[in-house]
């Protein structure tokens, strides 16, 4: 059985004047340890799907199973476009926040959390406040906060889109290597074709109005073992990029 199963999920947003269909009949499954991407233009419902996977709200129709269970008590980690570190908490308070809320806080888990901080390349900042750190450093701390609760699955909602290009490339490598070393399953939402190829094993291309899966691409085996930066320099990268690019163009022509 698959690790994550999405069964015929549809979602509609209601307002006084409109009922907007954000997702229509989405089904897919992910194996443990896989890194997949939801790629698509804005308005294709990819963030909605991620929120549903996270259990932030139930879908209008369908269900999501993680290891065969639905329930709200999912062990998930969520990363947003911006770090959303709490400005009134120190870095160490921020990264142990999840532990505190889940009541897993112990000396042991705290030490582990601080080790995580080290493994994402942040040392000596435990007692600083977020504003004292650069954007890239803050997003690293947010990654450590997400990993500190040892989630079964990581949901990444365009976590690199607010960063400058260089920082983004560096963080892509860091996230990819870190997640691989912990054997985490991850779902990345992005509108950046290159990023989806560089980071994931499988790409789900979404079409919009209503959001649905248009096509699925498997990233070639030879790219999967490379770091995102190396992937971008590989000849197979360009071929896949062109294919996805054309699909996206087609989608927009039809729209």
């Amino acid at each position, binding site marked *: 059985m698959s690790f994550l199963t999405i069964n015929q999920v549809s979602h509609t947003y209601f307002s006084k004047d409109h009922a907007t269909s954000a997702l229509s009949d989405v089904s897919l499954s992910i194996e443990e340890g896989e890194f997949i991407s939801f790629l698509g233009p804005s308005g294709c419902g990819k963030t909605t799907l991620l929120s549903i996977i*996270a259990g*932030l709200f139930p879908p209008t129709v369908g269900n999501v199973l993680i290891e065969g269970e639905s329930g*709200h*008590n999912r062990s*998930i*980690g*969520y990363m*947003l476009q*911006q770090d*959303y570190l*709490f*400005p*009134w*908490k120190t870095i160490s308070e921020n990264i142990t*926040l*999840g532990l505190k*809320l*889940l009541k897993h806080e112990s000396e042991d888990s705290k030490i582990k959390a601080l080790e995580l901080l080290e493994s994402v390349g942040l040392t000596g900042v435990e007692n600083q*406040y*977020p*504003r004292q750190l650069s954007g890239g450093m803050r997003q690293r701390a947010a990654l450590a906060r997400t990993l500190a*609760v040892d989630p079964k699955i990581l*949901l990444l909602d365009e976590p690199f889109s607010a960063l400058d290009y260089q920082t983004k490339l560096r963080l892509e490598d860091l996230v990819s290597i870190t997640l691989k070393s912990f054997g985490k399953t991850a779902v990345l939402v992005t509108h950046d074709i290159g990023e989806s190829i560089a980071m994931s094993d499988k790409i789900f291309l979404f079409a919009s109005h209503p959001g649905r899966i248009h096509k699925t691409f498997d990233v070639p085996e030879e790219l999967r073992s490379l770091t995102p930066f190396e992937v971008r320099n590989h000849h197979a990268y360009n071929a896949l990029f062109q294919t996805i690019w054309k699909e996206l163009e087609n989608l927009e022509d039809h729209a």
Partner: protein
Amino acid sequence: MKTTPDIHVLHNQYKADLKSEKRRVRVYQLLIFIVFFGGWEIASRLEWVDPLIFSSPSKIWNLFTVKLLDGTLLNHASVTLFETVLGFILGTLLGTLLAAILWWSPFLSKVLDPYLVILNAMPKVALGPILIVALGPGFTSIISMGAIISVIITTIVVYTSFREVDPNYLKVLQTFGATRFQSFKEAILPASFPTIISTLKVNVGLSWVGVIVGEFLVSSRGLGYLIIYGFQVFNFTLVLMSLMIIAVCATIMYQLVAWLERKLIKHG
């Protein structure tokens, strides 16, 4: 190497400019003080204004020393200060608590919305007579006046700030399985601290109004009583002296709140 001394000189120049500007501000502040009180004294002595009504700084000072030495002033001032501080703390705490309840229940907040608007628009000091009859002419009713005057506006302002907290912070907490109470404690309340502190600053002034009016009505002790008494016996020196003391106390309270703000909001 050549630029280093230049930068040093420029920096010193900059610091000297800052210092001299600060000194100029102080000089002008002092000047206003001297002109105001000096002008007042002269105008009163030369009877440009009626000395019976407007008194004069020297008379006020003399009365101040007399009252200070016989102990009555300290007695009245401490009563008023106590009532104001308590009214102010109560008003702010109750207002914040009400705001928390409204945040907790969006339904309740929708239901209560028009009532809050009406209560806010109503002049609360008009409730004074009823409070005094209901709670008795003493501490309790005066403190209630000090609190009631600030509680509704605190509720409205703090509730608005609760609602304006970036929902993404709540999203982060929700993914960690936070309960509504945990979300409130970890995100909503600390994110609203700056707003709460700034309502404290407003409430300092409001509570003085509530307490002084309360003392006008109860008329037994306190600076408000001294003002009413002075008015009744046509001793405006006493009225003005009480007013001066209120001004000084209110300023000190305001500075304390500002100090608290710097202590609490260390990350900003």
